[in-house]
């Protein structure tokens, strides 16, 4: 009888999370690496790749957070200055505590960073959800606020980390585990956790639903305010993690720390295949996106034929081409 007939005829669902959007960024990544190699063989040298990928860690980690915010239909322009602010707070705290607690000041400082980051994100979230302000404007505002705070804390100068702590802390950026630089391991870990939350837990579904259609989400008993606020809180926490890896790199927070990171972050997310209007998020794509950006910058320096004046332009062109490749090789 018809029911049986039709339902047996149905072909099973392909495992849904391997569409083009998921491989696209990686294809682009590989293409880029090949081009890079042709331009300058040093490009694929272990040290160079290690350096580049390690550098991309900050953006990657922050962008993973941004994947939540954007997937839930939000946007966060404040991440760059938030990173600077958190770095500043953390260093000040560690320096203060170094005297009494010695090395213990470092883990303590890390905790502080996480807490501050979480709170900053929460603030952003509440302004956007409770305050019902366009995310773009709200976070543009907080961006200014964080930037001002770090400038104020540092008198416009820089907040260097205490000499006594520097060497103990240094490994967090420069150290390696089984030959792999720590920041890479950390960012992979962050991405792994994120993809679990996004693809294997309730919250992830809620995020995507809120981003895709607020009404449907509401009618399914999902609280838009809660979901989106949490997304911002996650973003804040990711920024904190990035800040923690960042401190040992230059050992100081300055008013210029993290300038324009927000643009790189959003670019990474979009290159990664997550739509700015919200919906399903692509964590691993985002990570690939972050690496791609850093590789392009690296390529600019390693190749000789780009006038220093034109670097920005060529980068722009490459990004656009990368996107086009993604689109049309579909």
């Amino acid at each position, binding site marked *: *009888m*018809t*029911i049986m007939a*039709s*339902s047996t*005829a*149905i*072909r*099973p*669902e*392909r495992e*849904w999370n391997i569409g083009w959007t998921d491989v696209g960024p990686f294809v682009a990544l590989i293409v880029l690496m090949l081009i890079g190699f042709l331009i300058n063989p040093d490009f694929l040298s272990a040290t160079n790749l290690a350096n580049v990928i390690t550098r991309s860690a900050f953006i990657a980690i922050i962008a993973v957070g941004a994947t939540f915010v954007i997937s839930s239909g939000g946007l966060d322009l404040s991440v760059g200055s938030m990173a600077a602010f958190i770095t500043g707070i953390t260093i000040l705290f560690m320096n203060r505590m170094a005297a009494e607690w010695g090395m213990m000041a470092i883990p303590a400082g890390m905790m502080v960073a996480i807490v501050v980051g979480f709170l900053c994100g929460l603030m952003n979230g509440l302004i956007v959800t409770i305050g019902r302000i366009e995310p773009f404007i709200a976070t543009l505002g907080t961006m200014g606020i964080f930037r001002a705070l770090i400038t104020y804390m540092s008198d416009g100068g820089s907040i260097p980390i205490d000499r006594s702590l520097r060497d103990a802390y240094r490994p967090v950026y420069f150290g390696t585990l089984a030959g792999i630089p720590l920041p890479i391991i950390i960012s992979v870990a962050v991405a792994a956790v994120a993809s*679990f939350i996004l693809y*294997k*837990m*309730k919250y992830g*579904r*809620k995020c*995507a*639903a809120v981003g*895709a*259609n607020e*009404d*449907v*989400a*509401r*009618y*399914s*008993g*999902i*609280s838009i305010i809660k979901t989106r606020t949490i997304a911002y809180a996650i973003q804040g926490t990711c920024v904190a993690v990035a800040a923690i890896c960042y401190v040992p790199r230059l050992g100081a927070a300055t008013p210029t720390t993290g300038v324009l990171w927000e643009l790189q972050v959003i670019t990474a997310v979009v290159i990664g295949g997550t739509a700015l209007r919200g*919906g399903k998020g692509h964590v691993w794509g985002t990570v690939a996106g972050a690496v791609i950006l850093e590789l392009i910058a690296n390529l600019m320096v390693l190749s000789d034929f780009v006038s220093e004046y034109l670097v920005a332009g060529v980068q722009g062109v490459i990004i656009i081409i990368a996107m086009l490749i993604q689109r049309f090789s579909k």
Partner: protein
Amino acid sequence: MSSVLRMEREGEIDMAAEPLRHSILRAEGVSKQYGSVTVLSDVTLDILPGEIHAIIGENGAGKSTFMRLLSGYIEPTAGTLALNGEHVRFAKPEQAQDAGIALVHQEILLAEALTVAENLFLGRELMRNGVVDDRTMLRLATEKLAELGCLVSPNALVRNIALADRQLVQIARALLDDYRIVIFDEPTAVLAGDEVERLLAIILQLKKQGAAVLYISHRLDEVQRLADKVTVLRDGKKIGTYPGRTLTQMDMARLMVGRDLAALYPEKRTKAAGEAMLTVRDLSVPGFAKNVSFQVHKSEILGFAGMIGAGRTELFEGIMGLRPATGTIELEGKPINIRSPRAVLDAGIGYLTEDRKGKGLLLHERLAPNLTLSALARFHPGIFLRRSREQDALRAAVEQYDIRLKSFGVKAGQLSGGNQQKLLLAKVLLITPSVVVIDEPTRGIDIANKAQIYAFIQGLVAEGKACIVISSEMQELIGLCDRILVMRQGRLRGEVSGEAMTEHNVALLATSDAAADGNVGGTK
């Protein structure tokens, strides 16, 4: 079976006998495939002027696809179209429109951020000396809408008007110019009483003016009243074209389904309803409903009748915590916080929205995530979701509600209208509520599945659940419910039950103030 087969052959109109010369639009062996999925195969059809031609078929039979194809929204993968005998190809809807073909879509396609008038004239604004002529457009809009009995202000944002009103606006779009071929894809699905009557009158008017009308509906009574010819589709194939008058509704049903059908409405249980399940007191939804109080009991089916705009939907949206509302509700004696939708759902009240596309389903999402969205809690034993469990749930739902799909990979938006409705029903019942509120349960559902859904609702109350049915189809309410509450202008006007449950009484309460609030059947 045999009786059906015989009908299929004998009842059919002999096309050869039909004079082909004045057929204005002819589809010649058209087929449509999506990837490897064949949705429509080798359909041939002649459309004659001054004739109302109904297309009927089960959910997913391919009706909407066929109509989109005739009006240039999609192109056939095989076959041709001929306009007045000349071969034509519609690459874009405009081309079809220029050829005088208008389609009223099954799903509502209006820009919510724009006003009613702006939507009406979108893409063909009237100009006066180089400037959009708003005054005239507003006038025309008001007139056209009034003809359809829709009184929303043309300046209202579409976002702020009810579904029914939106549908009327959409219909008005197709009536603005005088098209030679007007296609209605389930225009009455979201309409009730008066609107339907008005629309049918208008369609007959079109016929008089010599236009050809294609009419799709699952409300076979309408088909019977209107259709000169009836063409039946089944699984994308044309079964045949039959003279409208001679077919009874049962014949149509048989032809659609390809087998004999049991009675539409299940036998009503005689045993009295149990003790109170849900109690609502003085519930008010500002702007929509005032001081509504009622009770629904265990194993009872309670109906809510009323004209469009009576505020039934808003009343229950209020109860579900989806709109600001005041008042108290108790489930089995326990008060429920109606501030948060989640709380109400968890308490065990399920609500199926009347707006499946806007508020029910994530159209760009796969089926499983849609199905489980409001019941995620039960799909992660630990902290992680179990994809496998979801897939099982989906398979079960597809079986149970006979959701017709060609592949589990499709997105919800790619399901046919009726099948979307079934998926939504499955989604709501997945939280196993003890009180189920269904707003327009069979909107866009074909007759065979209507029977299934009614039987299913019976099953629910048989398990001791309570069920509330909001519907604009009175027969549905009367056939299904134990009691019917009637709303008008946001207030409860009365209750009918038992013998008193007649269309006449319900209509009386729903419309006229004269029936000084419900001396028909005991009023509360």
